[in-house]
């Protein structure tokens, strides 16, 4: 039994942020209150924030295939240091996680190596090639929490329609990447004056809305449970809002990079800022922040994508996309808190409660009976990010050298301490 005393409790369900205490009994939260804490072994939080551990929807661990970029052990350490207590991993590995056998392999690796909880997503089509659906029923039975081809858009609408129809019958959640693949083919930046000046191949932000519109029509046809991995442009929001109002089972996410950076950050062809979809305009960024505040966008995720130095030390067009973010998710999110744009309960609603709810997990809450997955952090502690201090094997963070605030002081998974800061 442990009692966290003098803690600023961030409850994303009740949307409260108040000083109190929390009693953990074994792997569960047993009791919570304000005022005088009960007697027992206690941890004095010194007024720092205690929140449900982050449930990060869309982490790439590069096993199988590219263990030199990230393993379950290194990703687990990075997650614990970043306050992430559950990683929902992506199937865009080499090979793709598209059969029960591969799924079993990663489950075994995760269980033996990672210090935090790991749930796995499956590819939607074999090899993420957009031709044949995977064994959705078997994969669900084997523990896949969602089905996605990640950034490979299923271009053949008939294939997608069948996969969604079938997924609906099994009750599976499908995650899609809203993008018109023909329009965005070869693009490295968002079209606009910055890309025009830099001479980079660019994609119109409209490509996202076109992809979204197609998928929404298919959702209407099939009634499948659907989540958009990343909505990043203002023009996609009205269609999303309408679909939600019409009662479809649809949710949406956004990456922390699209909430805290814009296209100008690419500056002089800095490849650590190359992500997919590409960074957007400042207007789009602000619209996304507002959509998270209003709840239209449900989930904030790290979209953790490890890349080694060699894949980034190339001309911008040739460089690989993606950024590591397990450890920078929380401090980057604190930028939005300190800017007065999002409250702490709003942030943890998007980073913990909503993704857990969407995947049917019990975590993400700070109430009696919930798993004791917790993060203790100081939202104000300042530091300068040095990418070589990251616990990830890959160091490709766009926040290298950035002044940030927000330090994790401790992370607990099922009541066990997995990180001490």
């Amino acid at each position, binding site marked *: 039994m442990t009692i966290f005393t003098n803690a600023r409790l961030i409850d994303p369900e009740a949307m409260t942020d108040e000083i109190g205490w929390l009693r953990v009994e074994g792997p569960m939260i047993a009791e919570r209150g304000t005022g005088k804490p009960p007697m027992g072994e206690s941890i004095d939080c010194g007024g720092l924030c205690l929140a449900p551990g982050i449930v990060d929807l869309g982490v790439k661990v590069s096993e199988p295939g590219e263990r030199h970029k990230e393993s379950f052990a290194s990703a687990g350490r990075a997650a614990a240091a970043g306050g992430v207590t559950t990683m929902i991993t992506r199937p865009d590995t080499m090979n793709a996680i598209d059969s029960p056998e591969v799924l079993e392999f990663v489950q075994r690796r995760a269980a033996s190596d990672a210090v935090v909880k790991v749930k796995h997503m499956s590819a939607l089509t074999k090899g993420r090639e957009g031709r044949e659906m995977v064994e959705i029923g078997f994969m669900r039975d084997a523990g896949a929490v969602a089905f996605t081809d990640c950034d490979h858009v299923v271009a053949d609408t008939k294939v997608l329609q069948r996969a969604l129809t079938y997924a609906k019958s099994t009750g599976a959640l499908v995650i899609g990447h809203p993008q018109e693949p023909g329009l965005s083919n070869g693009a490295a930046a968002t079209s606009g*004056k910055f890309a*025009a000046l*830099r*001479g*980079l191949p660019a994609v119109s932000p409209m490509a996202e809305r076109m992809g979204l519109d197609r998928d929404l029509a298919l959702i209407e046809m099939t009634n499948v449970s659907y989540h958009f991995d990343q909505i990043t442009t203002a023009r996609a929001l009205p269609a999303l809002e309408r679909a939600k109002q019409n009662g479809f089972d649809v949710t949406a996410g956004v990456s922390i990079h699209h909430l805290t950076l814009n296209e100008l950050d690419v500056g*002089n*062809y800095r490849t650590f800022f190359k992500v997919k979809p590409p960074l957007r305009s400042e207007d789009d960024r602000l619209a996304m922040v507002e959509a998270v505040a209003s709840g239209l966008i449900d989930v904030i995720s790290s979209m953790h994508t490890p890349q080694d130095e060699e894949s980034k030390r190339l*001309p911008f067009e040739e460089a690989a996309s993606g950024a590591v973010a397990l450890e920078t998710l929380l401090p980057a999110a604190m930028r939005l808190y300190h800017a007065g744009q999002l409250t702490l309960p709003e942030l943890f609603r998007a980073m913990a409660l909503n993704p857990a709810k969407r995947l049917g997990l019990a975590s993400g809450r700070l109430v009696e009976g919930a798993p004791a997955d917790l993060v203790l952090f100081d939202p104000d502690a300042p530091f300068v990010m040095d990418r070589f201090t990251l616990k990830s094997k890959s160091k490709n963070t766009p926040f290298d050298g950035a002044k940030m605030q927000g330090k994790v002081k401790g992370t607990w998974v099922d009541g066990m301490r997995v990180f001490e800061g």
Partner: protein
Amino acid sequence: MAFRQKHLLGIEPLHPDEITAVLDVAERYVDLNRQSEKHADALRGLTQINMFFENSTRTQSSFELAGKRLGADVMNMSMQASSIKKGETLIDTALTLNAMHPDLLVVRHPHSGAVDLLSQKVNCAVLNAGDGKHEHPTQALLDALTIRRAKGRLHRLNIAICGDVTHSRVARSNLILLGKMENRVRLVGPPTLVPQQFREFGCEIYDDMAEGLKDVDVVMMLRLQKERMDGGFIPSEREYFYRYGLDAEKLAHAKPDAIVMHPGPMNRGVEIDGTIADDINRSVIQEQVEMGVAVRMAAMDLLARNLRASREADKGVMV
């Protein structure tokens, strides 16, 4: 103000006074190049390496000649045939060359920003001879010198850049330079080949040649870059020539003394009518080539001065 750059990676980092400084030095080299004794010694003892990751005849020979006339040891490397094919990365190639102690690296590369990346890894002066669809600074400087000599000034002119702007690094460098020198720049071409975002930089954009050329002092034609296109941007070359090719009828909308420019190589009968290109009263296309050598001599001369000064300053300093 003197020319303070360590590299010439683009027009964007240049101050207007630095542009003027390059052009003024280039004027002197124009005179030198017209004499029978064409040698100077500004680059004596220095090594110049031309690295062209993309095919080029004109730019490469212009740089080669410029270096030789200034007394440098010039080496040409055709990168397409070399280690790039064996899988070496750009940075490794740069480091390999750097170990040979070059003083001037002239680089052309098919990707935007690649020359910039390379310049961060070497300790010599780097000249961008064209990177992807980004910049081609010496072309813009030679165009500026040509305009200044033909028009007597390089400010308050109306200049139309016509044709395939989207795929053109020449257009980007030119519109930045001409903007810095306070000219009015128009972009004229089919909307599929002219990025509308350039309007935000203060360019006027036209999709009609007659309107676009009305009362301009300079008509700058661009080559239709078929090799950079990934699909249909225009229906056919004959329709393109009919609507956007420069012929006498379209040129009649410009000022009577307007000059016609083209960075070469030309596609006669596609973007420009042969008789206009050959009209010595209107076309300054041959002069552009001449100015090219002079401007490249000037740019390398100025960079070499800065290089020598910084090496002098580093002498005796522990590094």
